């Protein structure tokens, strides 16, 4: 019976992780090129229960729930026009390559600017790489030809913060670069809201299970062994 207590508690903890992920999606509802996450849960450590008197098997019994994975949905989102010459969006698959202090990183957030040397850089000041892996220079008219930006296909992309993504580059991707546009955030407000409500109710259900088990244990401790008052 106490096992149920811990199973219910693990379910509540798992919902907390889901809630953290949803809050992160919502906080990034306006971040260009942001990709939304989805949390999946799985049971782990199933035990085979058996009747201790007869030895007959009762069936498998889960011992807890865990968050097995957070998957990122990297599907391209529509680009929206901004009219800024140094805003870029990739229409289709692929990532911009960015030179950072930790090596080459990738991004779909194309809100770029120019640095003191006239190079095209991200808002954090990291140079954006063009075809052939060289930094790009902003022209005298304040523009960069979108065809000169490198669009990399990535295997196993993984979000790394600061709008950057890590992964294994695998050649040129099919996506086309458009200047004067930014890719919309992948966070879907309606879906996040629904997930948030479902997750909160699952959390609440876990609480009810714990309370019920607590009541049952209370009865076992105080009433089963009580000397009848009559």
């Amino acid at each position: 019976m106490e096992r149920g207590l811990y199973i219910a508690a693990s379910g509540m903890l798992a919902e907390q992780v889901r809630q953290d992920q949803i809050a992160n999606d919502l906080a990034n509802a306006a971040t260009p090129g942001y990709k939304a996450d989805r949390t999946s849960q799985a049971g782990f450590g199933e035990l085979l229960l058996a009747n201790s008197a007869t030895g007959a098997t009762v069936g498998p019994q889960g011992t807890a729930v865990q968050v097995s994975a957070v998957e990122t949905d990297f599907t391209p989102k529509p680009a929206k026009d901004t009219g800024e010459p140094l805003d870029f969006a990739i229409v289709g698959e692929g990532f911009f390559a960015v030179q950072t202090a930790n090596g080459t990183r990738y991004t779909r957030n194309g809100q770029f600017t120019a640095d003191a040397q006239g190079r095209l850089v991200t808002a954090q000041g990291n140079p954006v790489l063009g075809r052939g892996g060289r930094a790009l220079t902003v022209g005298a008219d304040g523009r960069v030809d979108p065809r000169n930006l490198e669009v990399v296909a990535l295997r196993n992309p993984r979000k790394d913060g600061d709008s950057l993504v890590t992964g294994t580059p695998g050649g040129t991707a099919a996506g086309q670069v458009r200047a004067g546009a930014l890719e919309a955030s992948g966070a879907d407000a309606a879906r996040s809201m629904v997930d948030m409500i479902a997750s909160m109710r699952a959390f609440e259900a876990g609480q009810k299970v714990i309370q019920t088990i607590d009541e049952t244990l209370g009865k076992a401790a105080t009433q089963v062994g009580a000397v009848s008052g009559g």
Partner: protein
Amino acid sequence: MLEGLNSAASGMAAQQQRLDSVANDLANANTTGYKHGRVGFRDLMYEQAGRPAADGVRTGHGAAAVDAGKSFGQGVLQRTDRPLDVAIQGEGFLRIKLQGGRDALTRDGNLQIDGLGRLATNTGALVQPQITIPKGTPEAEVAMGGDGTVTAAGRRVGKLALVTVRSPQALTPIGDNAFQPSAASGAVGPAPRATKLTQGALEASNVDMASAMVAMIESQRAFELVSKAIHTADQMWEIANGVKR
């Protein structure tokens, strides 16, 4: 526990910053030579989630606003037919010396002649290099050519210097329509040849009311949305508190 509370708060703070920037843009929708801000967002770091999460399950920590500087898109030229008004077409700035002695750049060409006959902006900052209009010259006889040459009653008295930096987005706005170069903007150099001056016109603010309004609505809704995550986290704390009655 419930890191989401902080992630949501960071998202609200980020939206607040963009709202501030949009409000400033809207307030300057009629400011000569004003350039609107570019505020973007980025996500923050991702960390291994606490138990009961499998290895490799990482949750993010919210969002932050990113200042991508000013947008130097050309503003529309407005005809004023005032001889001392001059609009810059293309990339470039006028060099001015502020009253405190500091050098600055501006695209506000609403010029005046000060008490000593020198060309100055409407806040009294002197145009560099200094140009003196001979005493008694009527304003109507001051001519400014496309390349910046200033003549008074047909006589050349100086030339307005057009300058720029490598990264105008990174210039520091210092108020009064003036900018100062920063380490990120690069040093001041001559403007491209294609840049021209137009006398008798002023460059309007490049704030587009429609896009500013859309940005404002988007920020407000995103702000509201994230606040729901805070509310939910709060409810979950309450539920957790209710476990032990």
